[in-house]
């Protein structure tokens, strides 16, 4: 009996361990590779651990203007789209979460169906819109179009948050003579702050990870985002024939690290937001 229990625990432990290895290995391998010298990277059989760890690849990447531009562009685009969708989304969520009115369920329905919206379905028209507005190859084109996927999600999650606020709080505020706008800014916004952090993180990450629109609406190296820049790495650096894998992995680690750290620090919030967005649907 005891042996069986131990065997069961052993199998369970193995399963958990292999799960963790499966989850982190690709990132771990990129991390290890980024510290290897070229000689170690391109040797067979492969070496699992760098014998002479080097920062050479990181030095190359950080001296690459295109890469630095891309990192800055991604920060600008992801934070601007997050701020805009939080501002607009919180206003909308206040209306949807605290007011009963005709058409409310229709609006909620549209918001929900938009969270499942395939970006590619509007690519043609957005391409024309971006050109017509003179935004082609400019960062505001991305801030504007990324709202397609950040805004519905933000509204959906924040509405859930604001719905949960007890009605007594609202009544007390009105008794004190607060206007709807004061109720929103002074009472609801602070109460929705945890939800804003969650949705803000999720929309920042979604914007940081986007590729299709970045590829379609920008062109020159100084306007690319990191996901776009990482593709052109092979073409612009070193020889055209050989992919600079060491630099590629160093760049990959650099653009991924902030997100992985954010995800780990805010894991509870992110998991709650991810599953709230879905379970309710």
């Amino acid at each position, binding site marked *: 009996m005891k042996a069986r229990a131990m065997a069961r625990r052993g199998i369970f432990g193995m399963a958990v361990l292999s799960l963790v290895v499966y989850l982190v290995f690709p990132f771990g*391998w990129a991390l290890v590779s980024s510290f290897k010298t070229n000689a170690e990277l391109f040797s067979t059989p492969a070496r699992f651990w760098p014998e002479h760890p080097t920062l050479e690849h990181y030095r190359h990447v950080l001296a690459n203007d295109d890469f630095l531009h891309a990192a800055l562009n991604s920060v600008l685009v992801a934070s601007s789209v997050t701020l805009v969708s939080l501002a607009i989304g919180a206003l909308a969520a206040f209306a949807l979460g605290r007011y009963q009115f005709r058409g409310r369920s229709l609006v909620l329905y549209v918001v929900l169906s938009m969270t499942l919206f395939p970006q590619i379905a509007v690519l043609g028209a957005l391409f024309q819109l971006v050109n017509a507005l003179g935004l082609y190859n400019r960062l505001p084109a991305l801030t504007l179009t990324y709202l397609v996927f950040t805004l519905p999600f933000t509204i959906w999650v924040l509405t859930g948050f604001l719905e949960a606020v007890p009605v007594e709080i609202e009544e007390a505020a009105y008794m004190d003579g607060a206007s709807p706008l004061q109720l929103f800014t002074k009472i609801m916004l602070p109460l929705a702050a945890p939800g804003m952090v969650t949705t803000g993180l999720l929309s920042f990450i979604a914007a940081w990870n986007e590729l299709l629109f970045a590829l379609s609406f920008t062109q020159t190296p100084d306007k690319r985002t990191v996901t776009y820049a990482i593709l052109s790495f092979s073409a612009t650096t070193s020889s055209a024939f050989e992919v600079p894998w060491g630099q590629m992995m160093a760049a990959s680690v650099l653009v991924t690290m902030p997100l992985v750290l954010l995800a780990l620090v805010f894991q509870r919030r992110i998991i709650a937001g991810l599953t709230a967005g879905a379970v309710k649907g």
Partner: protein
Amino acid sequence: MSTTASEAEKQGEVAGIRARRRARVAWAFLSPALIVTAFVALYPLCDTLYLSLTNTRLASEEPPRFVGLSNYVELVHDGFFLDALLLTVLFAVITVMLELALGLGIALLLDARFKGRSAVRAAMLVPWAIPTAVSTQMWKWMYNDVYGVFNDVLVNRLGLVSEPIAFTADPRTSLAAAVLVDVWKTTPFVALLLLAGLQLIPRELYEAARVDGATRLQAFTQITLPLLRPALLVALVFRTLDALRVFDVFYVMFGSRPDMQTLATYAHEILVSISDVGYGSAVSTAIFLVIAVFIVIYVVLFRRREA
């Protein structure tokens, strides 16, 4: 009597005015979101539909003409489009099945209480947080035919194969290579979703089942699966819709290789590289239709079973 009646009427009127005023306030708060939504989603959606019925080309001298359904007639005879359609559907079916099965297994594993569970849950976010474009590059490095770690293990350490495999170049392994990246990236999301569903199931049910002498398998099929059904359906729908519009993995891994185009990469190619907005919009609309077909299939399938 009459005074109270008119008072009630008055009160009703006041309530009506108040309700209308509240509705106006609500629409005012909603308006920025509605304007943005109309501008970047609803209008472009209708415009794409309209453009698909024209021969619009970017930077063309001729003004666009209305051409009816001729773009769609062309689609049906377009071998590249049909190949992309087949590949996309195949990819969606395989990845969604794998992700649900694997995700359910992981969720069951993490539903048990053990030391370090929150650390494992945190590790689940690593694949999810990495941009797909970047993780595809990481996998390409592992897939590398000469220096990749997979070939190193298969050829040098285990000796399972004699020649290194060019995973991403060989047509026989290309689809599997893309599937693995997608499964790695999105299974955590499925698992977290199902885990949230599992944690809603009252533990007493399992206790009662054990008292009644049910086996673990019975408890799983009689309690866990039926109660997890809503979460499973949400995961199924989310993952299917996502897989049908797959772009990043294929674009980064295969570029413009003709035999590895999905509907989304094909639409992008025609819209952006060739600037044929009319035909490209028809491809975009076709993706929408394919997704609609899947939704109808799911609705029919799961309604029936419920009845």
